[in-house]
Structures are given as C-alpha cells and as structure tokens.
C-alpha cells in the first residue's frame, strides 16, 4: 500500500517533518561552510550575534523581515488558489513606482500619516496592475501563470530601468533614481519600540511598514479562513474540478487571487522606498520577491508561519552580512545557497521523509 494515504498525527505533519526538512537544509549549508574551510559553528554564532547582538542588528533583521512578510503573503495568497506566482519580484518593483509617485506628489503638502494610506493604495494598485495580464492570460487563455509572471518580471525590470533613467531621474544627476522624498513622503523609524527594550536602533531603517505588514498579515488570515472568497480560493486550490462543480467561477477567482497577490507584493515597496532610502532606486527589490517563495513555503502558507519565516530570513540576511564581514571567505551570496536549500527541502522535497515517518509511526503504535 502506498504510504501517501496513511494519516499521521498533526504534530508529525506540521511539526516534525518540516523541522527535519529545515534541519537537512541547514546541515548541508553547514557542510558548504566547512568545505570552504571555516567552522560552521563559528559561522552560526556569528549569524546570531549579527542578527540579535545589538539594537541595530535587530533593527536590520526586522527591516528585512518586513519586506519578506509582504512578499511571503503575496506568494501564499496565490498558492491558496492553486496558482504559483513567481512574479512577486516584478510586482513589488512596479509597486515601488506606485508608492514613489504618491510620495513625490504629496510629500510637500501633507504629513506622513496622510501620505501613508494613499501610498499603500498606490503601491497595491500598481502591484496588482502588474499581475493583471498574467492573471487574465491564466484565467481566460489558460497560459501557464509561471511562464507569464516570469516574463513580466523581466518586462517590469526593463520598464523600470527605462523610467528611472529617462523619466524620473533628477535632471543633471547621474544616478538613476528619483529625488529624495521630503518628510511628508517618509515613513518614521520605530526607534521607540527598541528603546522600550533598552536598545538603540542606530542606522537600522526599521520603520512603520513593519506594523503595516502585521496588520496586512491579519487581514490575509481573515480573508483566507474567514470569508466566502477565501473559502472559494482554497477550494479552487485543492481541487479545481470540485470548485467548478460547486459553482465557483474559475476565471473570477483566479483574477481576484492574482490581483490580491500582486497588490501584496506591491506593498512591499513601502518598506525600502519610503521607509529606508526615501527615493526610488534601480533594483531596490533585490530578490525579496523570490525570498517570498521560500518564506511562504516555510511558513506553510499561513500568515503566522510567514511572519516567523520572514523573521528567520531577516536573521539570515542580517546575520549573513555580519558573517561576510567577519569571515571574508564566506561571501554574502551564502544566503542564496541557504535559501535554495530551504526551498528544495521544505518545498520540492516536502514529502521525502514521509514514507520513513509512516513506517516508524506504524511500528511504534503497533498498527
């Protein structure tokens, strides 16, 4: 008999197996570190020291985590509807355009708390707009969403470079970026949270978007598990034929799921654009859209899991910087290695340990 249909208790399915998957990913990462000739344990302690050792370190960790929460949610919403949105990267890039335009238009006239909600909206709308064509092609023409969203990542990158180099650039400047936003277009730092715990934020750009991210995560939870639309999306994700039989409109649900996914990805831009650099720059997304895939997989597509997974990846990014500073042999790209391994073992090889688990479980319980 196949082991796939044997039920396992929840703590094995949602606790032990994901833990084993992650463990293998990190053991192999440690092996790579050892291969280079450094001590994996030293690297681990540097990682933790870099990410949590100071108020500034924690600030950077949470700053990175903020972006990853948004992109993780973006990937997760699509996955619930059975769609694999690999285009969060491009949607976030365009979202940056949306929130930068709002900030540029308003920063001279109103304080940040007026700009912020409009910027959230702007980023969301631009992100969603970039998901529209792939969503339409999937819903109406049956083109594979993976292919089209990849295409749109590249089209988006070309478009943004064009806009920044030829249109939005400050006349007379060389750098392809917009002007610096005034105070009305910047999100304030959250230094006071750090001070409650007696730390100092220093140069870390940990800002209000973190709170927005948490609120948005709660909304996503509400949407997926507490609304009719969320139920329809999950039904479609589990079984398209059952969804069709239940009268759930395929095209409409796909469109809504993808537009929401694009909007969530777009909102990620608030954090780096308005929260950190206060201007729109080339390649500001820096792969956060792809990290969202790993974050969503690790967080089992649940908002709470995504928040924790995003913080873990924040630790990897900030701690990874620290390691590359202290151990010049290990470059920053080590993060990509770990990321790839996490995606491989927590995602593609998700069920690798399951048959073995079933055997052990059956032997132990005597069934």
């Amino acid at each position, binding site marked *: 008999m*196949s082991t*796939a*249909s044997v039920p396992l208790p929840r703590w094995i399915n949602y606790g032990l197996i994901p833990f084993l998957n992650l463990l293998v990913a990190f053991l192999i990462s440690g092996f*790579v570190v050892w*291969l*280079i*000739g450094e001590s994996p344990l030293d690297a681990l302690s540097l990682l933790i020291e870099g990410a949590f050792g100071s108020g500034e370190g924690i600030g950077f960790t949470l700053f990175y985590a903020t972006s990853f929460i948004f992109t993780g949610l973006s990937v997760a919403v699509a996955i619930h509807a059975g769609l*694999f949105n*690999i285009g969060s990267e491009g949607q976030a890039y365009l979202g940056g355009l949306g929130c930068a335009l709002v900030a540029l238009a308003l920063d001279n006239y109103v304080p940040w708390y007026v700009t912020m909600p409009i910027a959230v909206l702007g980023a969301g709308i631009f992100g969603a707009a970039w998901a529209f*064509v792939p969503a339409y*092609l999937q819903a109406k*023409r049956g*083109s*594979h969403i*993976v*292919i*089209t969203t*990849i*295409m*749109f990542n*590249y*089209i988006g990158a*070309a*478009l943004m*470079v*064009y806009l920044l*180099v*030829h249109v939005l650039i400050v006349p007379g400047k060389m750098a392809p970026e917009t002007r610096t936003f005034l105070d009305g277009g910047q999100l304030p730092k959250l230094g006071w949270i750090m001070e409650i715990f007696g730390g100092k934020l220093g140069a870390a750009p940990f800002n209000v978007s973190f709170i927005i991210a948490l609120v948005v995560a709660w909304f996503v939870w509400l949407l997926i598990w507490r609304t009719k639309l969320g139920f329809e999306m999950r039904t479609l994700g589990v079984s398209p034929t059952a969804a069709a039989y239940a009268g759930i409109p395929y095209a409409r649900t796909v469109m809504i799921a993808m537009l929401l996914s694009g909007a969530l990805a777009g909102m990620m831009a608030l954090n780096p654009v308005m929260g950190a650099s206060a201007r729109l720059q080339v390649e500001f997304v820096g792969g956060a859209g*792809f990290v969202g*895939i*790993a974050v969503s*997989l690790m967080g089992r597509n649940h908002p709470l899991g995504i928040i924790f997974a995003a913080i873990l990846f924040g630790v990897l990014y900030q701690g990874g910087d620290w390691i590359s500073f202290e151990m010049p*042999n*290990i*470059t920053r*790209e*080590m*993060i*990509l*290695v*770990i*990321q*790839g*391994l996490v*995606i*491989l073992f927590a*995602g*593609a*090889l*998700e*069920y*690798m340990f399951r048959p073995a688990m079933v055997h052990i479980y059956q032997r132990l319980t005597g069934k």
Partner: protein
Amino acid sequence: MDYYDIFISVLSSTIRLSIPLIFTALAGLFSERAGVFDIGLEGKMLGSAFAAACVAYVTDSAWLGLVAGILCSVALSLVHGFASITNRGNQIISGVAINFFIAGITIVLGQAWFGQGGRTPQLAGEARFSPIILPGVDAMREVPVIGPLYANVISGNNILTYLAFVAVPLSWWILYRTRFGLRLRAVGENPGAVDTAGISVTWLRYRAVMCAGILCGFSGTYLAIAQSAAFIKDMSAGKGYIALAALVFAKWKPVPVMFACLLFGFLDALANFMQGKQVPLIGEVPVQIFQALPYVLTCVLLAGFIGVAIPPKAGGVPYTKER
C-alpha cells in the same frame, strides 16, 4: 560603414548570442515534452559554466571543461528528477531552488577557491574553445556578397557553435524518429497510457531530464570557455528564462525552437548595436525595448494573437502509479 558590413556584423553577433539559447531551449524541450517543467535551466547553465571554467583552468583542457560542465548539469538534473519524479514534488519549486542554490554556490566557491570576487581566473590557449577558420576564407573574402558572409558568419566560430546547429536536427530526429522519442512525447501527454504499455514512466522521465542536463552542460560551457574566457558571476543573466520563452514561442517544437532562439539572439544583437545610435524620425531607441521584446512577444503569443501554444498535456503533473 557600409550597410552590408553592418548587416554582417549584426548577423555574426546574432549567431554568437543565440548559441546558448539554442542549447538551453533544446534542453527545456526534452524535459518539458516528457512532462517535467524545468525552471531550473538558468541554474543548470550557470552551474555548468562554473564547473567548466574551473576544470578548464585546472586541467588546461577545454574538452575536460566541457565534460565537467555536462556532469555538473546532469547532476543538477538528477536532483530535479529526484524531487519532481521520485518524490512527486512541485517541479516549479524544485527548479527555483536549483536556480537559487547555483546563483549562490558558484560565487561562494569561486571566491573561496580563487579569491577574485566570484570570477574564475582568465583562461587562454587550450583551455578555451577557439574559433575555427574554415578552409578557403582568405580566397573567399574578396568575393562580393558571399565572401564576407562566409568569412565572418559561417567561418570563425568555435566547435560548440557548429554543434548547436547539429543538435537541432539531432533533437528532431530523436524526438520524432526514434522509439525513445515517441515514448518521451507520449509520457508528456499521457503517462498513464505509457505505463499501461509496460514502460516505466519514472525511468523515461529520468532519461529525459538527463538529456536536458547534457544540453544545458553545452550551453554553460559555451558561455564560460567559448564565448568568454572565464566564469563571471551571474553570467547567465536570465538567458535560461529567455530560452524558456523561446521554447514557448516555438510551441515546443525543435526546428521552430532554433528560429525563436535566433530571433531572440538577433534582438539582443540589435540592442547592442543600436546603443547610442540615432534612428531617423524616432531618435535614440531605448535599449530596454529590445531587452523586453522577447518576453513581450512571448506573452502576445500566449494571449493567442500568433496562433495557439499548447503545452504538453501532462506537463508539471507528477505521475502517481497507484492510489
């Protein structure tokens, strides 16, 4: 410069830029016709470029570099196969994982081994595939029209370029004229029927992804030790995805794949040529238009404006033998 000379120079760089696309898109063809989506083409190309450059540097032999490139790429294909065929995992996720892993590990190992910021040392002489001058070039050069074409486009390429153009009819022959090819295509459309005929779906798909690995090995090797003389970090620069677009654009058929790759290579060559040049009436054309055009064209195709692209029916679906 004379218009014909411009044409010749754009044409010869079209060939140069198309070769990695052709190998990679053919790799995707084998994999996807067997029902295994392969987003990891990019990673396999980059990984084999790194392996080829390292081994060619150490052994001073381009051919050993090629072998290393192929071995690396096939190994990655087997990982992809293990995840998506044996473990029935998500093929897209597995491909994404491979791309990330390779993008990181090539730089980490490159820095640790050579300390040049992710580059490998410069290669020269026997460690590279150098241009082959066909016989009679000097005599032909003076012949009008055909002469420059022969001397600059047909001659003066390296062996891998010619192999790419051999690989196209060869792939066609394997896929459409051999028993293996028939079964491979069948397993991408209806694996259940293949299984009923007593043929192992698993083994067939494994062979298909290994074919993809071998072809990607050629494209990576071409990048590192034929086109360039070293591995440079992230040197595949999205070519794996352009090849994927070409594969879709060519509707998963070998000969159209070659033409799609030549078209996308031509757009790339044109972009390089047009940089900073004025076009009458329009002015300077932004280079980004050429960069986006392959993807825009593919999306237009997918939207159904240029015929219909129907992917292999069982693509992306893991095969479950029993319930």
